[in-house]
């Protein structure tokens, strides 16, 4: 028995490694990489792989849903979904699995740019067209990028607070997204620029709510204790803004201040409804780009056309004057 164990252990490792050394079936990219060589026109059948960073966030679930719904109208498309659960390494594996499956097109919303760059390039170099959504990858080894402009959104939010909510000036607290996340840095950067126009607007405190409603609430509990006078809460997303609202309400101060968010998801628990129902003063749309991604895929695979390298979708201000109307527009089926 004793003598068996090491070989067995070694075999367990070696079996897979050796099997990996067996046959080589590297597909060589035929024509120019990323070109629509996979375009077989309207008669073709296409498998599209969608690699999502994390579906625990409602914004990203909505992105998947938008892709699913848009793809329903294109009978040639069969879309697969993978969820990386915020783990870069898992997302690399997800994309590699898609490459193994020889999908016809990859849509990816990367968890982070740097770690996903190499594997996206690998797919692209194998001739798979790649549409990158929301967060970029580095370099230019992808077919097209579609996203919002977080700096611009932050700027619009800052301007709105400085001009509309606090023309006479006042105290603002900022609830930030997850430290280390690019949108968090960009929304903050834009916001700081946006409020510059009004020097009487002061950011008196900021805290990180990690994009989460409950974290936004507990951070706001503390901010309320520490700051007797708060006029506006600027939150990097709607769930944290809702959390902050609940915290203020718990101590009876919700009417003394205004709350703004970002994302404006057209779902029942989203920011547009919160504006419509009066909890938030405003929010700013951050398009999921799901519809646009399928439109781009259609152009590449079915029309054999090309798509722009970068497509930036503008943000829209949602306030009580337009919330109900936009919610209805985004949900035509009720």
């Amino acid at each position, binding site marked *: 028995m004793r003598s068996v164990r090491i070989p067995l252990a070694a075999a367990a*490792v070696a079996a897979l490694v050796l099997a990996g050394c067996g046959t*080589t*079936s590297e597909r060589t990219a035929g024509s120019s990489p990323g070109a629509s060589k996979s375009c077989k026109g309207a008669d073709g059948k296409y498998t599209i792989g969608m690699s999502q960073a994390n579906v625990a966030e409602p914004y990203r679930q909505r992105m998947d849903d938008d892709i699913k719904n848009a793809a329903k109208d294109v009978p040639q498309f069969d879309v697969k979904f*993978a*969820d990386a659960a*915020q783990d870069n390494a898992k997302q690399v594996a997800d994309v590699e699995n898609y490459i193994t499956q020889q999908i016809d097109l990859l849509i990816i919303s990367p968890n982070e740019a*740097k*770690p996903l760059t190499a594997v996206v390039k690998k797919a692209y170099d194998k001739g798979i067209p790649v549409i990158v959504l929301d967060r970029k990858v580095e370099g230019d080894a992808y077919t097209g990028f579609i996203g919002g402009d977080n700096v611009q959104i932050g700027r619009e939010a800052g301007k709105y607070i400085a001009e509309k909510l606090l023309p006479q000036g006042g105290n603002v607290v900022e609830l930030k997204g997850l430290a*280390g996340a690019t949108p968090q840095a960009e929304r903050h950067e834009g916001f700081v620029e946006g409020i510059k126009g009004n020097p009487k607007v002061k950011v008196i405190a900021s805290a990180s709510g990690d994009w989460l409603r409950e974290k936004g609430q507990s951070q706001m509990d503390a901010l309320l204790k520490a700051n007797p006078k708060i006029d506006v809460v600027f939150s990097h997303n709607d769930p944290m803004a809702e959390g902050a609202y609940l915290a203020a309400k718990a101590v009876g101060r919700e009417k003394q201040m205004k709350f703004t968010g970002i994302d404006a998801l057209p779902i029942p628990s989203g920011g547009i409804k919160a504006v419509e129902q009066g909890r938030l003063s405003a929010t700013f749309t951050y398009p999921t780009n799901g519809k646009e991604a399928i439109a781009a895929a259609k152009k590449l695979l079915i029309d054999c056309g090309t798509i722009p390298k970068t497509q930036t979708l503008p943000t829209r201000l949602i306030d009580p004057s337009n919330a109900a109307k936009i919610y209805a527009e985004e949900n035509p089926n009720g």
Partner: protein
Amino acid sequence: MTDVQDRPAVGAPAGQRSVAATLFRFQSVFGLIAVFVAAIIFSPRKNGEILFISADNLANVVRAVSEIGIIAVGMTFVILIGGIDLSVGAVLGLAAVGSAVLMVENDWGFLPSVVLVLAIGLVFGALQGIATAMIGIQSFIVTLAGLQIARGLARIWSGGQGVAIAYGNGPNEAPASFALLGERTFGGLVPIPVIIFAVVAAAAVVFLRVSAFARHLYAVGGNEKAARLSGVPVVRVKVAVFAICGLLASLAGIVHAVQLNQGSPNDGIGYELDAIAAVVIGGTSLAGGRGSVAGTVAGALLLGVLNNILALNNIDSNIQLLIKGLVIVAAAALQRLRPTS
């Protein structure tokens, strides 16, 4: 001595074992073979090729398993003495950040960076071992605190942001020798992390078989009081085991940083649970005293193959979680049926 009967995994004379006992002992290896065969059967095919066993795919599977595998080897040691280490994922993040900051921002060389990062993991683990063994706090609590501390340190060290790694000889570039470690394949086929994992696993298997330390380790896990009474240096064993676990988590962090060209303070969230799952599937008893590194390696590979085949078939990610959960429960249930020799 008590440890003899409590450590069947190190091997008692073959004659004393029934076939059933052997089957149970290598349940994870048989499980791995079963899952591997099932994966071939259920693999999607394209142009007559079985996608699962394509060279590229198998290389992907073993590479994806490597980091968790390296951590799980360390975790096996800790669980063998009846402890648990919840800090390994955070230590991985800390080590990934450390590698990136030292080489990219502080312009350190390859070797000193790696040595310092490994030393940090070792010391971090040893401190947790000391808190467990000498102050007598449960390892669950100590390492739960360790998780927070390592995550906090990683955020502070990185300035709260992912530190991107670029390669070259200039300032703010990591040395090319580090990139070598990150080359995805050795000889064009075997990913480097797999080689590191294989070496770590082999070393651990040998270590557990030949060293006197291993006897002490199984003794502590089997019955700590009895071990102490029979002269086993319990405190030293515990500190050493947690130090090894921290060291390996740190090594996994270095591998992680090279693989992803980045050290991020959010790296490795939840990895401790995957490592524990690999150990449990590998047949190591959470009560301590019984189990093997070979089982853990098989357990990690089993999880990797399972992940891969579910993904290749585009099983919904929520269903994937259910299936993996059921596999863990099944493995643990089989352990309960195992005859105690």
